[in-house]
């Protein structure tokens, strides 16, 4: 099935930098699709290729079956919400919103009707005759959205639209964008470096790094089953352990030999054969921590450890422990009243344990990605 917005092997370089490297991506009609990644990963370039502001060095872009690669931006049925909103300062809110239809030379009556409808949608009827410099950040963003949507584009491109807003406002605009998407039903392509935005808004996410796609999937797939160390470390927190596949006690489970630790059982969804070197990733919230040794259970991994850091956060506590020479992170949620228990403290001997289903082996691992995990320093001046 051909997708609605199709990127076919797009490459783009700027001087010595390969911004986008042979990237293919298919977005479905009506989808809220996010391109997520750190700055410089190529996501903005992809957006600009879709909008028509960059021509790829190689590859093609298809919209609803039609090749739009060489089409200039004003001839595409695609509209962009810029990061700075780029509202026309010399036009009023009304003038800004009407711009696209005026360029298309629609009849005056139709333009007025549509503009009023948009003003109602974004709830700025009483600000309609003001110039942008008198509006707040959130209001400007809504004008930018209206200005784009009024043209009924096939795809709406959003370039980190919430980056300029403060936290509270961002949370509110997140929900508003979601509502608008549901109401209008247009395909959204949303570019961001903020995983919270991507995860809460999108139907599917493509995680990008250094010009390549690391993984495409739903937010849950990306979070629970990352394929590479980058995805595992960039989204949320995780622990990495390096080991060798010793054997497989059951068809779908492998046993890993990790230096310093007892053998670890892990679910093998990637059909990795015995003898291979692999990297294991276990998310901190999947690991439990206790002073007492846990009951042995099938596929449960239990490891003794010493607590090195305790960070109390209120609803949760983050523990950094050392087990068999490895520094691991454990996240514990306080589901019951906390002050009743005897707390686990620094230098305590504990047991940490997790189920074999809750860890995963990674297809791709890069040492660099370990740096994405925010490990607290142990001495002043530690890198």
């Amino acid at each position: 099935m051909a997708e609605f917005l199709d990127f076919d092997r797009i490459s783009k370089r700027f001087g010595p930098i390969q911004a986008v490297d042979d990237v293919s991506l298919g977005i479905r009609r009506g989808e809220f699709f996010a391109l997520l990644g750190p700055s410089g990963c190529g996501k903005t370039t992809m957006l600009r290729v879709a909008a028509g502001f960059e021509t790829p060095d190689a590859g093609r872009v298809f919209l609803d079956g039609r090749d739009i690669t060489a089409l200039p931006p004003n001839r595409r049925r695609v509209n962009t919400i810029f990061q700075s909103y780029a509202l026309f300062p010399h036009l009023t809110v009304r003038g800004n919103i009407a711009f696209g239809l005026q360029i298309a030379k629609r009849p005056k009556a139709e333009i007025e009707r549509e503009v009023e409808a948009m003003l109602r949608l974004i709830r700025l009827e009483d600000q309609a005759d003001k110039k942008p410099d008198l509006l707040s950040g959130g209001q400007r963003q809504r004008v930018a959205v209206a200005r784009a949507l009024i043209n009924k584009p096939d795809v709406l491109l959003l370039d980190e639209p919430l980056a300029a807003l403060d936290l509270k406002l961002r949370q509110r605009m997140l929900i508003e964008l979601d509502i608008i998407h549901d109401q209008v039903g247009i395909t959204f392509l949303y570019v961001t470096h903020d995983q919270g935005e991507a995860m809460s808004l999108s139907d599917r996410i493509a995680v990008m790094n250094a010009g390549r796609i690391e993984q495409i999937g739903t937010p849950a797939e990306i979070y629970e089953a990352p394929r590479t160390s980058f995805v595992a470390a960039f989204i949320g927190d995780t622990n990495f352990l390096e080991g060798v596949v010793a054997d497989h006690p059951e068809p779908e489970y492998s046993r890993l030999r990790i230096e310093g630790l007892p053998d670890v059982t892990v679910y093998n969804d990637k059909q990795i054969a015995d003898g291979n070197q692999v990297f294991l990733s276990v998310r901190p919230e999947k690991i439990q921590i206790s002073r007492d040794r846990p009951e042995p259970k099938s596929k449960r991994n239990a490891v003794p450890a010493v607590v090195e850091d305790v960070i109390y956060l209120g609803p949760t506590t983050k523990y950094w422990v050392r087990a068999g020479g490895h520094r691991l992170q454990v996240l514990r949620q306080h589901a019951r009243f906390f002050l009743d228990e005897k707390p686990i403290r620094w230098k305590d001997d504990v047991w940490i344990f997790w189920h074999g289903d809750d860890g995963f082996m990674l297809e791709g691992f890069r040492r660099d990605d370990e740096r994405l995990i925010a490990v607290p320093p142990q001495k002043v001046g530690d890198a």
Partner: protein
Amino acid sequence: MHDRCRRPEAGSLVITRLRRRMAEILLTLPSFFWLALFFLVPTGLVFILAFRPADPFGGIGRGWTLATIRALSDPQYLAIAWRTLWVSFTATAICMLLAIPTGYAVARAAPRRRNLLLMLVIVPFWTSFLIRVFAWKSILHPEGIIKKALVFSGLVDANASLLYHLGAVILVTVYTFLPFAILPIYAAAEKFDYRLIEAARDLGARPFAAFRKVFLPGVRQGLVTAVLVVFIPALGSYVIPDIVGGTGSELLGNKIAQRVFVDRNLPLAGGLSIVLILAVLAPLLAVLALQRKAGQAVPRDGEGTP
């Protein structure tokens, strides 16, 4: 299924690049051509003319000669060059002494007051230069107000003249170029983070020490611009010495004009112009060299050893 061809149309990339190049050349050509023709060429001409002999009837002779260059070592020219340097230097120094506190004060003023002050400083900046020099000529005139006031208060002898000497030239030069000095210092002072001075005071520095050690280095760029913007035009002064200077206060500019209009000795005028050009280039190149040295990379966190 769509065609799996990878490249966009064959020549389109090349055409875009060519079109871009053409656009650049088209936009650059008008001003480039004009400035090359009316600025570069004439300046080159000045250099060339200095090496040509002077025609006794006021034109330019044929052939080449170094006689003009050698004539420049005449003591009268050395005296004038020295005088020009000295006057420019003094005027610049006085301007800086006045401009630094003023620029600072305007930058620190409350916003509404600041706009008013800025306008008050800018207006003379836009006023006709000739008129301002003339204003001084008339008030320094022996029958003028200031002379009368000074004689009245006993500061000055009745026979002394306030006009037609180097003092008057320096005074009027300061007057003329002071706004030029204030503005860059104001611009730099406005961007300066005054919490740095608070930090210095917190660490024990007295007000003047904080000013000297923290503020001045912080507005260094503005100070350099201010110096250049007074010193260099001052070197080329013509009108000021001409109107308020009198015969003993000729500067390089006046000499050049004299050679052109009175003696009709164009090559010599050219030679003197070269001297002026060199005098102007020297501080500029010095500043450029200093800036290059200062612009060395700053180490960042995480790179290199902690």
